């Protein structure tokens, strides 16, 4: 029986399961112990599993990710946290030049099974250096997988799937999602997770246009679809869930049905994941089904501002999606 719980709690439950199930798993990051993490995600885990396995680290992002790489290639299953995803800027070498490359570069003789968790996104007034959505960087790097769950159930299931994956996984959570609630079926073994990295999910069927979203834009797209429905427009809403690998087939199939594509994410538009979704559609036979140019609803191309109204203007809102969808359908 599914329980109602928050995204943060469902994520914590997944970590608890992994810590219980596999002694090779450990957590490391800044203030993840008694503080419970900047967003309370790891709250209580240090009491349960001890300071050895739920490790507070110094403020040393490069060492945190490097620690994970070294531990992963010698038999551990690290789950490390960047306190805000922006700080991964300090850890791009171990993540991109090391974790992503070792398996290939060393001829396949090593695997790097590690998870880097990082909260991204704006809406909290934390401004330019604490609000970025950087998934596009990671999705561009062969060797990394990139997961962005939108619901409590998915964050639970996909963390387990990330653990089962022998590759380095960048696991991007959105700060505003932590407190959202939903029904969650807790798994009792990681292997029970039904989620697969690389599988999108059609959350709402529709006939007039396809909206492809992920992370925080998934609930916003669903809300927009409700609004659109009352205006007589039936949107099909796809939650991509993972952007590397990207389940482009699901998007293509939907576009063939609806004839219109809108992609939305909070990250800025230029060279974002949305561009990849569009390209993936337009280089296939789905192109022929397009009844109108595609639309992207993305973050404005500025750093994230602090002031509430500025932040709102930069971040795509429900009404932005709705307006763009209407324009697309009525064009």
């Amino acid at each position: 029986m599914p329980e109602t719980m928050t995204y943060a709690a469902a994520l914590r439950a997944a970590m608890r399961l992994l810590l219980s199930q596999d002694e090779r798993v450990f957590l490391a990051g800044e203030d993840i112990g008694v503080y419970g993490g900047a967003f309370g995600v790891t709250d209580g885990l240090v009491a349960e599993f001890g300071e050895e396995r739920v490790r507070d680290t110094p403020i040393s992002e490069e060492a945190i990710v490097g620690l994970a790489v070294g531990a992963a290639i010698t038999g551990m299953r690290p789950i490390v946290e960047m306190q805000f995803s922006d700080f991964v800027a300090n850890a791009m070498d171990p993540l991109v030049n090391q974790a992503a490359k070792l398996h290939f570069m060393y001829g396949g003789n090593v695997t790097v099974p590690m998870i880097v968790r990082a909260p991204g996104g704006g809406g909290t007034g934390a401004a330019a250096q604490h609000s970025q959505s950087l998934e596009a960087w990671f999705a561009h790097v062969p060797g990394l997988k990139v997961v962005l769950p939108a619901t409590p159930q998915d964050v639970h299931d996909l963390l387990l799937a990330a653990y089962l994956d022998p590759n380095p996984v960048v696991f991007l959570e959105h700060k505003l999602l932590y407190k959202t609630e939903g029904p969650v079926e807790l798994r009792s073994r990681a292997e029970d997770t039904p989620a697969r990295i690389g599988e999108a999910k059609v959350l709402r069927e529709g006939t007039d246009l396809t909206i492809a979203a992920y992370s925080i834009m998934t609930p916003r797209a669903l809300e927009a679809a409700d609004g659109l429905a009352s205006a007589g427009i039936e949107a099909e809403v796809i939650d991509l869930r993972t952007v590397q690998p990207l389940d482009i087939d699901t998007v293509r199939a939907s576009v063939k049905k609806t004839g219109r594509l809108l992609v939305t994410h909070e990250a800025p538009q230029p060279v974002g994941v949305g561009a990849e979704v569009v390209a993936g559609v337009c280089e296939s036979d789905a192109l022929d089904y397009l009844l109108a140019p595609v639309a992207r609803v993305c973050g404005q191309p500025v750093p994230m501002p602090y002031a509430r109204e500025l932040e709102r203007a930069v971040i795509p809102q429900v009404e932005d999606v709705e307006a763009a969808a209407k324009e697309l359908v009525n064009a």
Partner: protein
Amino acid sequence: MPKRDPTTPDGARRSLLVMWTIRRFEEALEELFARGVLHGTMHLSIGQEAVAEGVAAALDEGDFITSTHRGHGHAIAHGADLERMFAELLMKDTGYCRGRGGSMHIADVAAGNLGANGIVAGSMTIATGAAFSQMMQGTGKVVACFFGDGAANEGAFHESLNLAGIWSLPVVFVCENNQYGMSMAVDKATAGGSIVRRADAYGIPGVRVDGNDVVDVFRNTSEAVARARRGEGPILIEAVTYRYRGHSKSDRNLYRTVDEIEQWRKSRDPLDRYEARVIDEGWLTSDQLEECRIEARDAVRRAVEAAFRAPDADPADLVGAAYA
């Protein structure tokens, strides 16, 4: 702000005023936060005022600072306009950053505040670059770089001290050791247990000062600044202090005891201590003291009120704003 000597009557008045202003400013912010008129979070430096003022007082007009996420005090001591600071936090177009920066990003580059920085140790390489710039331009100016005990474990700390060391750059690295990096006790995070000891690794002087004694901070910083200005290179100052408030607004203070906080507050408060000293030394009378307090309080009040009346930051101005 011009240099001031907190061990003289005139300097004492000014330094005390600055320290009270910092405290009242941040207390006012707490109130505004409680009223729900602010956005985001903030990092208060209440209890650490002597570091900001001791350092800033030692700088000449035209010298630079770089600051941190916990930077209100640095900005105020370096002469920031209170109204523009409040305006920034109140999301006004008249704020230092036009409402785009907020608490963590107060900057006034023209006036020598190269900016608060939300990235731990993020301003250390920038301070180094600014110091390089002074050397290349022969300005004779010095950069004071504030950072925390937690920042001392970032790679940027190492690369900055090394670069400043080999090139003898005019930068004074000021570590505000307030005992914690968020929840992490400095002793747990710092191999070797001492930040000031790290100076030796770079062949530069290191000095540990009582960060709750504005005079001690001022004297040591003055020497460091003079040395840097003479072209003799960087120094690392570790100012031992304490933060009374939580790390930020979400802090439940689970990593320390109420007792510890009270201990510091009761016996080592930088304002209490400096006031006692100021009276003891006869720099100011108790009436003058009280005037400082009132002046600080009133300045803060006036600034908040004025800031409230300013126009809001305007979303229409965002187009193209990422680029100069």
